[in-house]
């Protein structure tokens, strides 16, 4: 059962039970993006408000899903708030590095200690890598955020 406890760290369960930044924002001025996991039906809605100086002024999360997708979304919202879009993209890269398994089955290089520090609570999701089918749960909110940022750019 150690694997399971590694997956469901206390901090993950805490974000799941008390999700941060849950709710909606008025659109416009905020932007809304919706993502879902075709395998299981989990849905995430991201409301994003980017200030004129390019920082994330506010973010809210809606939708429903499992503890991993919900806690990941909650941690993400806490982590990106106040950051610039460029910083968010860096964080996204570190997080995906943490989650990903390279295509040929070899694990990617572990994120560096400074990247881990940067990830904060999100680093608790590291245990997910041992459960490949759950990686999509953990990355769903990030992919939705990515989509929201891409739509803002367009």
């Amino acid at each position, binding site marked *: 059962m150690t694997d399971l406890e590694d997956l469901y760290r206390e901090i993950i369960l805490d974000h799941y039970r008390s999700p941060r930044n849950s709710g909606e924002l008025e659109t416009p001025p905020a932007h809304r993006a919706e993502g879902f996991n075709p395998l299981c039906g989990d849905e995430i809605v991201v409301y994003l408000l980017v200030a004129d100086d390019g920082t994330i002024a506010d973010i809210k999360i809606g939708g429903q*899903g499992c*503890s991993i997708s919900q806690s990941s979304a909650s941690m993400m919202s806490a982590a990106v708030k106040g950051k610039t879009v460029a910083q968010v993209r860096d964080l996204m890269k570190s997080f995906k590095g943490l989650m990903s398994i390279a295509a040929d089955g070899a694990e990617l290089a572990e994120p560096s200690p400074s990247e881990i520090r940067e990830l904060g609570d999100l680093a608790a999701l590291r245990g997910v890598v041992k459960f490949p089918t759950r990686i999509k749960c953990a990355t769903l909110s990030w992919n939705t955020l990515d989509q929201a940022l891409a739509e803002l750019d367009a």
Partner: protein
Amino acid sequence: MTKAPDFAALKKDFPILHTERNGRPLVFLDSAASSQRPTQVLDAMDWMYNHAYANVHRGVYGLAEAATNAYESARLKVARFIGSPDSSEVIFTKNATEALNLVARSWGGANLGDGDAIVLTTMEHHANIVPWQMMAAERGFEIRWIPLGENGQLDLTDLDVLLDGAKMLSVTSMSNVLGTITPLDRLISAAHAAGAKVCIDACQSVPHMRTRVDEMGADFVAFSGHKMLGPTGIGVLWGRHELLEEMPPFLGGGGMISNVTTEGFMPDAVPSKFEAGTPPIVEAVGLGAAIDYLEAIGMDHIRQHEIELTSYALRTLSERLGQAITIHGLSEPAQRGGVMSITLDGVHAHDVSQVLDGYAVAVRPGHHCAKPLMRELGVNATARASFYLYNDTSDVDVLADALIEAHRFFAT
């Protein structure tokens, strides 16, 4: 009915059920997605590969003849198993999904156009929805939906209105989410009275209860081998000879023609017309061996075993989990199959399945390829436990233990 077999003794035929996960014996409760298979089925396939394998139909040498005989014997076995007097009504496909696509495209392509209508139910698996939606987008016909009623049963209040002028009713015989056994007699006679053909998605019923297409009265019946102890890579479409005869081919290629020139081709007779290319030869033989195995036990005994198990499960889970658990669908075991969709209070289906896996209990979370049904149920995922002949009450007990742990883990 012949004497009931010793179900506990059957388990020895399934090596995978004697493997362990996390140091605990595997409790496999996902047969509705795909069953496991007995040594007898693997042996039959290996034997063919090692003694009697060649491509079928066009060889005159001994091996090719042996292989052709084995393949065609499997067709006869399937025909007998489902009560079809004419084995040319049995078409081998790669899975039930291909069988349903065949009906939608070939029969639908020849019979459905703008202004026409067909009827589905919101309880269908995507395999019995998407092929029709694809054809509807191309041909412009209407799809009408029989809605969900109380307790996971279909709401047939408007059945006759929905069928009025419809050309096809395509419906599941048993829900893969709720286990609901649909009232086929009533549905088929109403459809036929309205002049509609009937296609049955029998994926969940053929493995678990006696099927008699000769008594059923449907026009098409589709199911998969891998849910009934057979290998992957094989499915079956049964269709009425006269309908199959009239239908245009589905896939084109070798084996389905009687002549080809640069000007065009002439299709062969059924069933060849619908079996383009090298068929799943050894898979058909494996399915034949699975049928032998099922028939040796007796389908009525299997059904009886599953009713008892479902009954035990419904009782045990409600008693032990109380308010914490919702078991969707009918509460009367004799009216449902051994498929239970569960919601655990405060725990998402994914997490249920993950924690259960820690206890070596295999249940499937998600939408079970039935998103319209999930929407009607108002849930976005359930954890589904499903039984087969190799399960017993001890599996249910372990399931209950593990569900209690999952609930404790998340709820506290």
